[in-house]
């Protein structure tokens, strides 16, 4: 039954990583304008080795978020990132064109 099934998403992954002793950063889409590809509240979680789960966009800004997350993990200071998705390539017209997102990146613990 679906109810009994354990959740399997990036927040569970973050907790599992934490329990295995890894340093973890959590990135969260906190606001969007236009036709941004992922809703507010979406997460990307990153570990100290740069492994990641989830998404904050259709795939175009994840690389940048992972790189920033490395800084956040070492400094412990949260960061607010802003992206204009339209500036990035690889988005089809009419899908994500013109979207902007703000992504909050924080260290777990």
């Amino acid at each position, binding site marked *: *039954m679906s109810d009994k099934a354990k*959740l399997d998403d990036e927040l569970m992954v973050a907790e599992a990583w*934490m329990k295995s002793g890894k340093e973890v950063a959590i990135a969260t889409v906190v606001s969007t304008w236009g036709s941004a590809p992922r*809703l507010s*509240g979406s997460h990307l979680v990153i570990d100290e080795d740069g492994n990641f789960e989830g998404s904050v966009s259709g795939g175009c800004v994840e690389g940048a978020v992972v790189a920033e997350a490395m800084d956040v993990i070492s400094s412990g200071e949260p960061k607010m990132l802003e992206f204009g998705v339209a500036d990035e390539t690889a988005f089809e017209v009419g899908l994500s064109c013109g979207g902007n997102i703000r992504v909050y990146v924080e260290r777990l*613990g």
Partner: protein
Amino acid sequence: MDPLVLKKLNQARNDRKACVLVTNLDDGRDRLVLEGHLVEGELGEAISRALLTGKSMTIQINETEFFLNVHLPPAKIMVIGAVHITQAMAPIAKMAGYDLEVIDPRTAFATQERFEGTLVYSEWPEDVLANNPLDPYCALAAVTHDPKIDDFPIAEALRQNCFYVGALGSRKTHAKRVERLLAGGISQEKIERIKAPIGLDIGAASPQEIAVAVMAQIIEAFRKRRLN
């Protein structure tokens, strides 16, 4: 994020508890607010709004920006009775983004062939609900007409505070049902929550139209539900 807050958040989500993770975007502090835990003032109002709409949002209060990340359990519709109405409800529920499951101990009705892509239990509601308990994010629609099948899940839905409880049957049938529920120890106040006759009053005639009326009533009950 506080590791303890993450643990609590994951626990709440696993337990099908509605909650909002409140993050102060200026200083990074966060806390988890479970539905039913009152928060005062502007922030409290925004939290209630987030719980009702299911939409995560930022809010500015006295120069401080907060992010409210709302986590709602997926709303689930349990239909008692694998009948024609239910067959029409299943695709509508799917389209509208609600999980729908069907319970009917009558094996001739509860076949997977009649409900492709929908979870169907050909067991008694008592047995199914013992393993898959109802909760406030479940709707229950009882459409078999048979008290032997419908009565228990209706009473259970009222006890568990399901956001919607509807029962098929004429006013006369319902009056008898009310008597049985009262005799079974369910309070008048709870019994009045039952939508009977079932479905919004749009003059629905065919099973498919009744399915639309029931789904509309369920959606209304969900979007206008009172927070615990």
